[in-house]
Structure formats: structure tokens, C-alpha cells
């Protein structure tokens, strides 16, 4: 592993497998009567979230606590950010109190890379703008492996707002590295130009994308990032791109349906699919804690290129 986890693009397939195998061991800690191990005792982890988050922030905090790290959450809404402090200044001030790791979520793509250059602390990307969300992709891969063993050769369809989705980018990088046959689908206005260069099949037909799929991953329509009319109405979007029980029937009989959350029920996914027998959406959330424990543990160790030097 490198010093920081900025994105899946920095990881090799071996790194990914190492995280997933470590996560498998970490999950057992969460099933004990005492859900805590002393591994990161004395390490300080700062969760710096510039965007709203329930799942990711809670999941990181639980993971940190299960490893006995001292955690603190900077609530940006009640911080000096409101007084106009820049990200770099905030980070340097936090850094001055010598934490060991900073978990950052920010609305600007590349925010973590900038902190990585100026901070000695390990930086973990918890989502940067429309760029990457590596721990989400890792927990998705973990969940897929639980159901399908091997990711190589699976047909995986990712459907929804491709343009604004960091979950898509991280997942596309990860799943193609592990040899999946990846299809992405969305309205033409929400397909980023050049997406083919990630090695994915692109289609605007949801039926083509989900036909015989082993895994279907739905993406949220990110209205907070939309400035303009990308489609006529939410209702029309649901009719053309929403995941319904009829569309699930096109996929393989043992398909699993995933969603990174938060869901817009009745927009990208019908409620009966989200709560139905194929849905593994809550398993994804549960697995997130184990995967984040694995990432925290592995980053707390030495850096390979430093050791080699």
C-alpha cells in the first residue's frame, strides 16, 4: 500500500485482494461480544467531512472505534470553514495537532490529492467530488465476492447518473482490474464523454445492460450536483431507467441488486426491488465497516516504497 488511499487508480489487483482478505478477518471482530481490538491504540484519526454523509461517516467512525483509534469528527457546518478558512489552512491546522490519519470527503475532485501533498498524516479519500470513492468500490467488491466468489468474468451492469458518480469511477477502475465484464448505462445526457476508455461497454438501453447480468448496481440521481435539465422529469426517468421487477427478470436468476445509497425510491429503483430478495443493499452497509477497518489497518503500517528505499 502507498501512504494514502486516494483512489482505486493507485491500487494494483494484489493491493485490492489484500484489502478484501483483511476485511474478511475484520468482519469477525464485529461479531464478537466485545467488538473492539487494540490494534490502533494511540492513533488519532480525524474525520473531515465537507459534504453531508450518514453511511460513510458513521461507517468510518465505527471502524476506527473497533480498532481502538481515537477519533474526532470535524463538523464543517460548525467550524471555521464558515468563517472563510480554506481547505489547506484547515488541514494544516489539524495537521499541527499531529493526527495519524485524515479521512476526507470534499465536493471538489482532487481535494484529497492536494492534502496528500501537504500533509504528513495518511489521507483516506471518503469521496472527492465527481472523482473517486475508493472505500465504496472496495466494499462493493467485497459484497460481490461474498455472493459470486470470483469477480473475473461476471457481467456487471451499472445504471444511473454516470456523469456525477464517483462511485461509478472507482467501481469501473476496480472491477475492470479484477476482470469483470462491465456495462454502464444511463441517459445520454448523463454519460460522461470518454467513459469507454475505462474499458467498459456503454449503452443507453437498460434492457441491454441488465440482460443476463450477474450483478446490477444502481446509481443515485444526484440532483444536488445537477445544474440544468438532464432529463424531462423524475417520473420519466424512472420509466426509462428505473429498476423494476420486470427488468430484474432479464438478468440471471441469481442476480444481486446493489445501491451505494442514499436511495431515491421510485426514481432509480422501485421500492419492491430495493427491499426484495435480490437486494444486498444493507449487506453493503454492513460490509463497509469491515472494509474500512481493513483500510485503516493496512494504512497504519509502513509504506512499501519507503521500506525499499
Amino acid at each position, binding site marked *: *500500500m502507498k501512504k494514502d488511499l486516494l483512489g482505486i487508480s493507485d491500487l494494483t489487483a494484489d493491493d485490492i485482494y*489484500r484489502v478484501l*482478505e*483483511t476485511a*474478511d*478477518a*475484520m468482519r*469477525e*471482530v464485529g461479531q*464478537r*461480544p*466485545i467488538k*473492539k*481490538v*487494540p*490494534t490502533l491504540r*494511540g*492513533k488519532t484519526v480525524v474525520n473531515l467531512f465537507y459534504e453531508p454523509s450518514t453511511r460513510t461517516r458513521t461507517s468510518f467512525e465505527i471502524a476506527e472505534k473497533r*480498532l481502538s483509534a481515537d477519533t474526532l469528527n470535524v463538523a464543517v457546518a460548525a467550524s471555521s470553514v464558515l468563517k472563510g478558512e480554506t481547505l489547506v489552512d484547515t488541514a494544516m491546522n489539524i495537521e499541527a495537532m499531529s493526527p495519524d490519519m485524515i479521512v476526507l470527503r470534499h465536493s471538489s475532485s482532487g481535494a484529497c490529492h492536494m492534502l496528500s501533498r501537504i500533509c504528513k498524516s495518511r489521507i483516506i479519500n471518503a469521496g472527492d467530488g465527481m472523482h473517486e470513492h475508493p472505500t465504496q468500490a472496495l466494499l462493493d467488491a467485497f459484497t460481490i465476492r461474498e455472493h459470486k466468489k470470483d469477480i473475473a468474468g461476471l457481467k456487471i451492469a451499472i445504471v444511473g447518473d454516470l456523469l456525477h458518480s464517483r462511485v461509478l469511477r472507482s467501481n469501473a477502475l476496480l472491477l475492470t482490474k479484477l476482470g469483470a465484464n462491465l456495462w454502464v448505462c444511463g441517459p445520454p445526457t448523463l454519460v460522461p464523454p470518454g467513459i469507454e476508455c475505462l474499458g467498459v461497454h456503454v449503452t443507453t438501453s437498460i434492457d441491454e445492460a441488465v440482460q443476463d447480468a450477474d450483478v446490477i448496481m444502481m446509481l443515485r440521481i444526484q440532483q444536488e450536483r445537477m445544474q440544468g435539465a438532464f432529463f424531462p422529469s423524475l417520473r420519466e426517468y424512472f420509466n426509462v431507467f428505473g429498476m423494476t421487477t420486470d427488468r430484474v427478470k432479464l438478468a440471471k436468476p441469481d442476480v444481486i441488486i446493489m445501491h451505494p445509497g442514499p436511495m431515491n425510491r421510485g426514481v432509480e429503483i422501485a421500492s419492491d426491488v430495493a427491499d426484495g430478495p435480490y437486494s444486498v443493499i444493507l449487506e453493503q452497509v454492513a460490509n463497509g465497516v469491515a472494509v474500512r477497518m*481493513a483500510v485503516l*489497518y*493496512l494504512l*497504519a*503500517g*509502513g*509504506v*512499501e516504497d*519507503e*521500506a525499499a528505499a
Partner: protein
Amino acid sequence: MPVVLDADRMARSLARIAHEILERNRGIEELALVGIRTRGVPLARRIAKSLLDISHHEIPTGALDITLYRDDLSSHTLGPQPLVRKTEIPFSIDGKLILLVDDVLYTGRTIRAALDALIDFGRPKAIQLVVLVDRGHRELPIKADYVGKNIPTASTQNVQVHLMEIDGRDEVEVLP
């Protein structure tokens, strides 16, 4: 003399330990074996097999990974983190007499970590320590209850235990 314990003598040592365990502990129902990963696990299984042959009692057996409890993790500032593997203890250890099994007893730090880990799973009635080889050089006040073989070593030497289940042969070597 690099080979200090061959397959035959290893088997006899483990059989003797199984007898000693039965001699020392009356209530066989409350015994449970926990092997420390990696090589303590097959050793624990072999002792369970011996105990089954002798007493016709199946002794519950688990596997413990102590990586998350190591005391040298934060000093590993160079080099990547050691691999964490699964702990699998499929029974309650409350009120049990736990036989903790490892291949080599050296500084005692692994056993310290294992004791901490076990206590997180419950409150055993007692914990006894079984090792195949005691090579001396303790750094903590820890002592084995059952020892396959005491092997005096220099701290520069390297004791390697090979087991059929993992390495394809049963043998203990002392390397310079």
C-alpha cells in the same frame, strides 16, 4: 544437528501431551482447544484427535489470529502490516478450560497477545499453555504447562517447525 525433532518423535510428543492433559484435568467436558495461527492450529487439531482416540470425547477446537493484538504494530513503521487472518472460535469459551496451543514458545509475546485476545471472547475457567517446542529466552513471565520438547537455543538461531498440513512434512529444525 539441524533436525531436532523428526516425524516419529513429534507424534509421540503430541500423544504424550494428550495423556498429560487428561491426567491433569478431571472434567473432560469442559476442555476446549484453541490453536494460534498459523502452526498452532494443526497442532491443536492433532491433539483433539488424540484426545478423541483416548477418551472418545470430541473436544471443541478453534483457531486464533493474534495479529490485531501484537505489541509491535506501531513500531513496524517500515514495511507493510502483517497479514490478518480469521479468528474462528465456534463455541463459547465461558467457563471452559482452554488449552492454548502454539508451535514455538520464545519471548512469550505471542502468548501475551493471545491471552488478551481470548479474554475478549469471554471468561474461561482457566487457560493452560501447550507448545511443541520451548526454546527459552522469555521476555515476559510466561510458562508452558505442556511442552513437547525443550530445545536450548542461542537467540541468534532460528527454530523452524514444519507440519504436514502446511509444509508437507513433520520436522523441527534449528538453523544457525
